[in-house]
């Protein structure tokens, strides 16, 4: 599932879908924690998942705000078209 998200991040050009791919990766990591917690009968895994969930919510809020601003400026959500910062 992590690899699925990663691949999505690398191949997709739409910023919304890239954000969604990042969510998928975060959930993959969360799932791994929960599974590990269930395997060793520890509550830590679930606690970590709650952490990941909350940070993901914050990340989505910031990410969506940025995407909104970028869309206002460029009228596009193509990540490759918005490559302005060339060295």
């Amino acid at each position, binding site marked *: 599932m992590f690899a699925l998200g*990663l691949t999505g*991040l*690398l191949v997709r*050009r739409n910023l919304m879908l*890239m954000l969604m791919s990042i969510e998928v990766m975060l959930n993959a990591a969360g799932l791994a924690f929960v599974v590990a917690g269930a395997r060793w009968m520890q509550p830590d895994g679930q606690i970590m998942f709650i952490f990941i969930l909350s940070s993901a919510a914050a990340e989505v809020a910031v990410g969506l705000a940025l995407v909104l601003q970028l869309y206002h400026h460029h009228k596009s959500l193509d*990540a*490759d078209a918005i*490559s*302005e*910062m*060339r*060295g």
Partner: protein
Amino acid sequence: MLHLLWLIPALPFAGAFVLIVFGPRLPKRAVAIIGPGVIAVAGVITILIAISFLRTPPPNHAYTQELWTWFDVGGFHPHIGLYLDALSLLMTLVVTFVGFLIHWYSTEFMDGDEGYSRFFAYMNLFVAAMLMLLLGDNLLLLFLGWEGVGLCSYLLIGFWYQDWANCVAARKAFIVTRVGDVAMTLGLLLLFTHLGTLDIQDLMHRALTQWPVGSSLAVWAGFLLLGGAVGKSAQLPLQTWLPDAMAGPTPTSALIHAATMVTAGVYLIARTHVLFSLAPAAQTAVAVVGIATLILAGFAALTQWDLKRILAYSTVSQIGYMFLALGVGAWSAALFHFMTHAFFKALLFLGAGIVINACHHEHSIFKMGGLRKQLPVAFWTFLIAGCSLAGLPLITAGFYSKGLIIYESRAAANGSTTLWTLAVIGVLLTSLYTFRMIFVTFFGEPKTHVEHKPGYSMKIPCIVLAVLSVIGGFVETPRFLGDAHFFTDFLHTTLPAVIPGSAGMSELGSELWVTLAFVVGLVVSYYLYMVNPALVEAITAPALSKALHRFWFSDWGMDWLYDHLFVRPVVWFAHVDRRDFIDGFYNGCAALSRGIYRGLRTTETGRVRWYAAGIVFGSIVFVAIVLLV
């Protein structure tokens, strides 16, 4: 009262700090109050301390205030400590008092200058450093103040830094005095390695017990300290920086390059007089340097046309008198001349500032003339100061201080007839160039229109200094004229009395010769510049005297000599050697990082997905390393 001693250097320092940090944002009135104000408060504290010092003298007539330990390295732990005795008290009084008057004068003189607060910041910092130099209880602290005044001198000479010539003059002053400072640093190292301390009183005590008179170490130390003193006090052979230092604002010239800083060398030698008594060769060298400088600078002053340069050479020449006095062991006579010189020379510069301001910043005395009627206050105060400088008998302070030095140059054990004769010729020269300057500037036909008349802030300091230039001499008079010796009595707790030699002449006789030299100088310059100016042309017309004039005008060709001997070879070498391997190393570093930058900037594409891929790739490599290794 004495425990307030630390405030004396601290207040000007605080003033400088405030003006440096907040100066540009403060209104001008505030700057004009803070700048002179801190000096005035320091001056009042000095006077209070002086009163309590005289009423109830501390034990041994010296007061030490240890503030804190500066640093502690390998058994060497100099204190930040202040040491007050008669010598430093006298110098502190003069520095704060004359310093305050000059600050006050500057509030009007610098009016309208865009660097107003910067000027007062530098001036306050200068006074703070000078007081540190005077009150420091060890040679290292003295050296800190010594370098501090050098720095301020550099900053103030180059104050109008938009003009390239001023920057060159500032650089010259800094580098030339640095030559002397190297000698002084070596002297300090020598004293520390052999005597194990830099605390002045300890040092003098140990030198007295460990070194016999005339031992080679004492002579070396004396010569090295003399090197430092010669650099700072603009004596032969390092005097060339002082005339160029006149590029700074005139109050700076008055404060730093006439009244206070240039006498630091005199103070250093007086402070370490024990050392010089142990090294007769070094002490004789002091006298020789002094007498040679005063004669050479006198001749150079005769040929200058720039008002401030005449005064600069005259300063060099008068400090020569002080060195002469130190060299023959007349310590308090040197300090006496320091005090009177501080009054009348500061006044001469302040008067020159008024004149130059009034004449559209014209420096040439031959383009002035007839200013007597238009600037009466400047004329009268300038005349009084000039008479004091030349030594007008009986009335002026300069007569008493200079007469004492000249008498001692023969009567003291180290004195000789040659020194005495040359010193009297020096009086003749002084009188000649002083009255040449006064006659040409203030008498004759008016050549310029006076546009800027001085206000009260400029007049009052001049008048106060004029009064002091007259009455300052009555504290020490010759035996046949009242026999006052308050000054020597005041200083005898610190500085020993003169060792009398086989005097070949009475004090009266010596003073009569001085008077004669003064009168001859006055009459000759009156004749040449008032009665028969054509004669001056006739004298300077022949080729020989023209060459001599040029030679003296260029300060005996010293600048030319140094330029060809030191400056040009160094510049040439720097030019030839500018592609040496050290530069190659640094240029190589720069080229390498430029290459790396070129390679790396291609990765900076601005494509987010490339960055994500980079992160993934990097993580894989990292994890692989952790797992496999």
